[in-house]
C-alpha cells in the first residue's frame, strides 16, 4: 500500500516534468493502472471493489489513454513549449504540495486508517489542478483533469472504501463522456487554429 502511494506520487511528479504529449499519456496510463491495483488490494473479496477495479482498468487505463493517443498521433509537432511555470519550478511546486498535504493530513486526520493513501490522493488532486492551470497544451490539461479525478477516486477509496456502486458507475460514465467531449474539442481546435496550444484562446473578453 505504502509503495503504491509513493509510486503514485512519483507518477504525478513525473507529469510535471514532461513536455512530450505521448509520454504524458503513457504516465497517465500507468497511474490509472496503479489506482486500479490499490482498488483491488484494498477490497479483496468485495464484489463492489472488484467491479470498480475492472472498470478502472477498462476505462481509465484502456479507453481513455487509447482515445488520447489517437489524437496525439495527429498532433505530431505539438509539445508543451512555453508552460506558465517551467518544469523545474513546477517540480518544486509539486514537492511543496506533497509536503504541505502530508503536514495537513497529519495534523487533522491522524486517526484515518490508510493515512498514506489519503495524503497521496489529495496530493494527486492538487498536482492535477496545478497541471491544468500551468500547462497550455490541450492534451496536458486533459491529463491534469484525469489526474485530479484519479486523486478523488483514491480519496473515496481510502476514506470510506468508495462511494456506493451506482454513484461510482455514474462517475465512471461521466469521466468517459467528458474525455470524449474533450477529445472532439481538441480535434476541432487543431482544425480551426492549426494548434492545440490553448494560449491562443484569448479573443473573448469583457
Amino acid at each position: 500500500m505504502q509503495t503504491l502511494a509513493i509510486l503514485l506520487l512519483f507518477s504525478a511528479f513525473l507529469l510535471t516534468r514532461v513536455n512530450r504529449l505521448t509520454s504524458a499519456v503513457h504516465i497517465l496510463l500507468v497511474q490509472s493502472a496503479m489506482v486500479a491495483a490499490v482498488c483491488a488490494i484494498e477490497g479483496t473479496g468485495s464484489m463492489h471493489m472488484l467491479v470498480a477495479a475492472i472498470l478502472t482498468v477498462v476505462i481509465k487505463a484502456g479507453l481513455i489513454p487509447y482515445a488520447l493517443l489517437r489524437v496525439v498521433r495527429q498532433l505530431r509537432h505539438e509539445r508543451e513549449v512555453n508552460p506558465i511555470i517551467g518544469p523545474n519550478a513546477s517540480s518544486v511546486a509539486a514537492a511543496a504540495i506533497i509536503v504541505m498535504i502530508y503536514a495537513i493530513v497529519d495534523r487533522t486526520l491522524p486517526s484515518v486508517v490508510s493515512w498514506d493513501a489519503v495524503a497521496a490522493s489529495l496530493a494527486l488532486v492538487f498536482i492535477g489542478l496545478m497541471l491544468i492551470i500551468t500547462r497550455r497544451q490541450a492534451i496536458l490539461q486533459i491529463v491534469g483533469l484525469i489526474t485530479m479525478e484519479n486523486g478523488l477516486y483514491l480519496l473515496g477509496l481510502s476514506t470510506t472504501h468508495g462511494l456506493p456502486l451506482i454513484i461510482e458507475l455514474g462517475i465512471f460514465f461521466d469521466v468517459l463522456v467528458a474525455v470524449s467531449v474533450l477529445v472532439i474539442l481538441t480535434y476541432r481546435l487543431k482544425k480551426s487554429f492549426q494548434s492545440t496550444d490553448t494560449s491562443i484562446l484569448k479573443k473573448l473578453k469583457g
Partner: protein
Amino acid sequence: MRDLICIALALPLAAGIITMFFKQKSAIKTVNIFFSLCTSSVLLWLISRIAIEGPFKSGWFYVDALSAILLLVVAILSLTATLFSASYMERELAEEKIKFSALKRYYALLQLFIFTMIGVLVVENLGLMWVGVEATTLASTLLVAFYFNRSALEAAWKYVMVCNVGILFALLGTILLYYTQVAAGSPEEDALSWTALQVISGQLDPMLVKLAFSFILIGYGTKAGIAPMHTWLPDAHSQAPSPISGLLSGALLSCALYAIIRNLVVLQAAVDSAFIHSALLVFGLLSVAIAVPFILIQHDLKRLLAYSSVEHMGIVTVGLGIGTHLALYGAILHILNHAVVKSLLFNLVGFISQQYGSKQIMRIRGLFSVMPTIGTMFMLAILAIVGTPPFSIFLSKFTIVMAAFEAGSPLLGLGLLLLLAGVFAGMLFYTTRMVFGVAPKRLVRMKIGISAMTAGILSIIWIVATGVYLPSGLEQLLDQAATIAMGGR
C-alpha cells in the same frame, strides 16, 4: 408518481434518439415540438401531484416542493426553447450557416440536455445529483461549441475546463461529507441520501463539514456562475445558439443553485449557520458587484445579458445567505422569475441578431420600426429583468431586499439596492439606444415563425400575470419550498 418521473425522463431521451432517424427538417421540427410538449405536460402533471400529495420518495427518486419549483422552470423553458429553436434554426439553415446534419445533432443534444437537467431534479442523493450536474455540463458543451468556429471553440473549451475543475471540487466536498456520514455510523444504504443526512446532521464532525461546505460551494458555485468563478459564463452564453443560451442561463444555472440549496439544507444543520450564511452573502454581493461594471460598459448584447445572469445569481445567493423564511421564499421565487424572463430575452436576441446580422449593440438601431412585435417584447422583458413593477421579478427582488431589512441588516439591503440601480441604468441605457432611433437602411425584414411568436407571447403573459397575481397553488409550493430550504419538511 414513480411512473410519471420515469416517463418524464424517458420522453426527452426517446425524442433525442428518434431525431437521429429523420430525413426531413420539417419532420424533425414537428417531432421535437411534439415531444417537448409531452415532456412539459408530464412535468406539469407531476408538479400538480406534488402540490396535492406532498413529497414522494421511491428508491433513488425523490421529489418535493423544492424540486417541483425547479421542475416547473425546466418544464416552461424546455418547451419555449424548442419552440424558439424551430424558427431560429430554420433561419440558420436558410442562410446556410449550418448544415442539415448539424440540425439533427442540435436537436439530439438539446433533448439530452433537457434529460440531464430533469435527472438532477428527481434524484434523492447528493452523489447521484453530482453525477447529474456533471452530465449537464457534458451535454451542453457540444451545444456551446455548436458552430465550431474559433470563438465558439474558445468558449466551449473554457466552459468545459472551468466547470469540470469546479465540479471536481464539489465531488471532493461530497466525498468529505460521505466520510463524516460514515464516521457518524450511518449504514451504507443511506449513503449521501439527504433525508438520512438531515436526521443525523447533529452527529457530523463540524470541522470536516465546514471544509466540505467550502468545496461544495466553490464547486457548484462555479456551475451556477457565482463570482469569482463566473469567468466561463459570458463566453459560453454569448457563443451558444440563442435558445441554448436561454436554457443555460435560465435552467442550468438554476439547477446548479438547486444543488447548492440541497447541500445547504444538510450542512447548515451540522455547523453554526452564521459561517455558511456569511460566506453566501460575500459571494452573492461580489457577483452583483462584479457584474455592474461589465453591464455599464458592454459592446455585445448577449454578453450584456450574460452578466445580468451573474448579477441575478448573486441576488439569489444573497437571498440564501440572509437565510430567513422570507428571504428563501424570495430567492426561490427569483430563480423561477429570472429563468422565464432571461430565457425569453436570449431567445428574442436570437432573432434580433439574425435580423441585424450582428450581436454588437452599436449595430442595432430602431428595433421598434424594424421588428415591432419582437421589439415590444424585448423592451417589456428588459423592463422586467431590471425589476420594474408590475413584472414578476420586481416582486422577488423586493422580497429579498425586504428580507434583508427585516433580518436587521439595513446596510446589506441598501448596498444591494445601490448595485441594482447601477444595473438598471446600464441595461436601460443600452436598450433605449437599440429600441429607438433610425434603423439602418437596406435591411431585409425577416418573418418570425408562428411557434416562436406563440412562445414569446405566452412568456410575456406569464411574466405579467405572475407579477400581479400568484396562483394559490404556486404560492403554497413556494412556501413549502422555502420551509424545505430552511431545513424543515
